[in-house]
């Protein structure tokens, strides 16, 4: 692994602040011609200055803070809508559950009255409950999607 020469960073910091005296300058030039690491560092340093310093740093718009406040207001509105939607989501799941219990309960009572076998009732009810809940949820989701714009 290549060893890093500390001279470049030391001088570079000095040069940035314009503190490099004339006598040190000649010493630095002699060092650069002898030190491979510093030569490489200097080469890349110049390439970077040439490439990056040529790119103009864009400015922020004058009303940037105003734009941030607008974004915050939008985020607050979005959060409020999301909260309201979450409340409706719970409601339609409860409605779907109630509707499916109603359907499944009705069918169970009918089968019971017609004196069906208990195993047959159980085998019918398990998939029936699942489908009833699933369909009820879909129906209520559609209803919510339809009525949501009216509720805003």
């Amino acid at each position, binding site marked *: 692994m290549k060893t890093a020469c500390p001279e470049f960073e030391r001088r570079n910091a000095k040069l940035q602040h314009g503190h490099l005296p004339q006598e040190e300058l000649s010493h630095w030039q002699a060092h650069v011609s002898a030190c491979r690491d510093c*030569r490489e560092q200097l*080469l890349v340093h110049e390439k*970077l200055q040439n490439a*990056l310093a040529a*790119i103009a740093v*864009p400015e*922020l*718009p004058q009303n940037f*803070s105003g734009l941030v406040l607008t974004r*915050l207001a939008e985020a607050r509105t979005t959060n409020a809508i999301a909260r309201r939607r979450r409340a409706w989501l719970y409601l339609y799941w409860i409605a779907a559950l109630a509707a499916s219990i109603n359907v499944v309960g009705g069918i169970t009572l009918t089968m019971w009255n017609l004196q069906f076998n208990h195993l047959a009732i159980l085998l019918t009810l398990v998939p029936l409950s699942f489908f009833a809940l699933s369909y009820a949820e879909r129906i209520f989701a559609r209803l919510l999607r339809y009525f949501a714009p009216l509720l805003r």
Partner: protein
Amino acid sequence: MSALWQEPRSDRNALSAEEGAEDSALIQKYLESRDEILFKALVERYQERVFRLVLSVLGPYAQAEAQDVAQDVFVRVYRQLPNFRGECAFVTWVYRIAYNQALTHKQRARARMPHVPIDAPAAQALFAGEADPYVHAAQTERRAQVLACMERLPEVYRTTLNLFYWMERSVEEISAYLGAPAGTVKSYLHRGRQKLYEELKKQGWRDEDGLP
């Protein structure tokens, strides 16, 4: 070698105790009153610095996105401000959020579009102003190659080099931006240049091409 001789960098953005005290007072007032004018004042204090840090992470080809990301940073600051416990300086906390937000954005952008070609038209748009079109084209190509090689550097080296060479921030300022000691920043700069040298060599550059 003349390129090394620069004007002294200003330390207008350096951290100061006075600034920290002003921040604390402003935050305290804001948390008590929830007055948006106070939050706006906080944004105005840090918007330039946050924008520069975000730009340094995203790079010169993402100038349009940087403004959006900087806005997201302040939205996050707004949301998390009530949880800010003052264990570090406010500015350090804001920089940490900005750095993480910019990194996340960059990673997502990479996942969406793994390779961003640094082509001639994009580079032409960045480097304008040379009088001779042939010289301009040649210089633009060389500069674009340097930027393309920079894209292959590890995140922290690239950000440090961008802050130092593009944004012209001092080592002390970069140290505040990254929350790392000045010695570590110097080491990042050194290793960043070393890795960039290796990348340029891989691209067929010779020492004679650019030695002073």
